[in-house]
């Protein structure tokens, strides 16, 4: 068992900790060219070292508070590992009136063992408002979402910023990324009319280029530009709200340029295009990590252990007025060290 004692060496703990400091420094800013091994290796060393120490070192396993703390640390390492294997992190843009479906997800990052019930997540995006303070400082976002129950009844919820929508363990956060969309109906010369929507770039970030394009079936591309008036201003507070915004849609096609008001239409190659109304989309961040709650409890457990150890071993005075008088301390320490 000599190797096990070596594995439990407190010198190895220091080596592991210093490697972890280095790994943490490299992890700054989540740079893509830095491998996760800079964290995994030191954490694995520390985890093995700590496990060995818990079994062999009386200094740690005879002091319950200290034991609690270190077991807590070990559990945090394990939970973080589970979290990294099973998490999912993605973005999505969802328009007013649109229902959530997993195929909306963009920039998805996920652990290899992710196994959530994303297909069970259902909500429909409603309207939203965003408060802006003087100087264009973004304030509170209030985003309305409609959540169906088993009977198909909808409950309305207002979320935004740190008020998170949690469905099946998936957490949805509003972001600064949001904007307008235009709802259009395409009435082809032959066939049924179809209604769809075109999302324009993030607003007010790209208020100067609210444009996009679309190609009708069998025709050449159509360019859109939205002249939107929202009441946006720098010198005073205002509220971004699609219901109070007006948009004139500029349609360019084959060198022609037409300005459409809501419910007006224009003739294009192969059909008629109608501008139904102005709508909006909200960008969400979606995050799932089944370990979050456990991490919290385990971390608190660890800290309680450390606080208990502080209280027990070192004498129960918060402010050591006469530090020499702590005989209980020294006796415990000596006994343990002697072993």
């Amino acid at each position: 068992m000599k190797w096990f004692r070596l594995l439990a060496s407190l010198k190895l703990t220091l080596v592991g900790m210093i490697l972890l400091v280095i790994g943490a420094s490299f992890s700054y800013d989540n740079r893509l060219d830095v491998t996760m091994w800079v964290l995994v290796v030191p954490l694995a060393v520390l985890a093995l070292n700590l496990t060995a120490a818990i079994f062999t070192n009386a200094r740690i396993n005879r002091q319950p508070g200290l034991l609690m703390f270190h077991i807590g640390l070990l559990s945090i390492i394990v939970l973080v590992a589970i979290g990294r294997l099973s998490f999912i992190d993605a973005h999505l843009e969802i328009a007013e009136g649109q229902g959530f479906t997993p195929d909306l997800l963009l920039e998805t990052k996920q652990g290899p063992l992710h196994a959530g019930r994303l297909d069970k997540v259902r909500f429909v995006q409603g309207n939203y408002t965003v408060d802006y303070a003087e100087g264009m400082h973004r304030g509170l976002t209030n985003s309305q979402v409609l959540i169906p129950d088993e009977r198909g009844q909808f409950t309305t919820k207002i979320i935004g910023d740190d008020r998170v929508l949690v469905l099946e363990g998936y957490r949805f956060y509003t972001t600064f990324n949001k904007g307008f969309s235009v709802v259009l109906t395409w009435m082809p010369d032959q066939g049924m009319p179809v209604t769809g929507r075109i999302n324009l770039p993030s607003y007010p970030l790209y208020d100067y280029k609210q444009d996009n394009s679309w190609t009708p079936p069998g025709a050449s591309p159509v360019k859109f530009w939205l002249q939107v008036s929202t009441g946006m201003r720098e010198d005073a507070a205002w509220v971004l709200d699609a219901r109070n915004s007006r948009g004139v849609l500029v349609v360019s096609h084959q060198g022609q340029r037409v300005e459409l008001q809501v419910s007006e239409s224009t003739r294009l190659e192969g059909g008629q295009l109608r501008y139904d109304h102005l709508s909006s989309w909200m960008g969400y961040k979606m995050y799932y990590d089944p370990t979050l709650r456990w991490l919290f409890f385990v971390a608190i457990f660890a800290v309680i252990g450390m606080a208990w150890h502080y209280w027990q071993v070192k004498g129960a005075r918060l402010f050591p007025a006469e530090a020499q008088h702590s005989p209980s301390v020294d006796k415990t320490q000596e006994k343990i060290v002697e072993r």
Partner: protein
Amino acid sequence: MNAEGFATELPWMWSGLAAYALATLVAISGVVVQNSGAASTRGGRFERLVLTLLIAGVALLAAAIAQRWVRIGHGPWISLFELLMSQLWSLGVIYAVAYWRMPRFRASAVVVLPVFWVLGSWLLTLEPKASHFPATYYNEWKWVHVFLGKVYLALLLIGVGLAGVMILRRFPRALRWFRSMPADDVVDRVAWRVMMLALVFDSLMLIAGAVWAQDAWGRYWSWDALETSAFVTWLALGVGIHVRLTYRVPPWISGAIIIGIFVLAFTTYLGMPYVSPAAHKGMV
């Protein structure tokens, strides 16, 4: 200097800083006089004056913070000016309690109080202009996170006082100043005891911060400048504690480790906002 805040918080703030400055001068004279052979009762009188001045400084800074709070409509959470002022206040509160409750260690104030000068001088160079309150700061975890952070930094500062004494005692002249304090082995033990308590509060602060970050930005940890630096500091505390468990460390090195940790903590708290413009990168 910008006239903003002049009619409200600035005069209170200046008086608060002046009270701290006086407390420092009195503490230094106290230590010198007390240890030049004069009766110890005179030292006691100096100490009472230091405590009174500290309390006055705390009260004046509290008034300054309150005035500003009323003026701009939110607490001192955002700009460096606000963070420093609030930190000077809370460090003052906790240090005053420690000074009162740990009479045998009072001489270490000559190390601690100059740190207030550094922060105070820095504060004087900053503009008191109103700051914008971000949406994610409505979260109530902010209070928990900030409270814990304040206790943590104050405990580190108490540790720095003791560390400074262990280092200064290497110089024969300074040895006399700290005659009233216990021997180095005791100072060392108490200092690391305070550091362990600091680790408790640091850990809690990180937990509260992670919960807040999860709510606010959808991730509990993301290695932004502040988080990376805070983790390194937390680990440095663990390293410091473990070095002493593994090796026999002479008091002055032990003191140097404590000061190193304190520097890391303050860089995290007050330096990182320069690296990433908002307190956290994900904030705006």
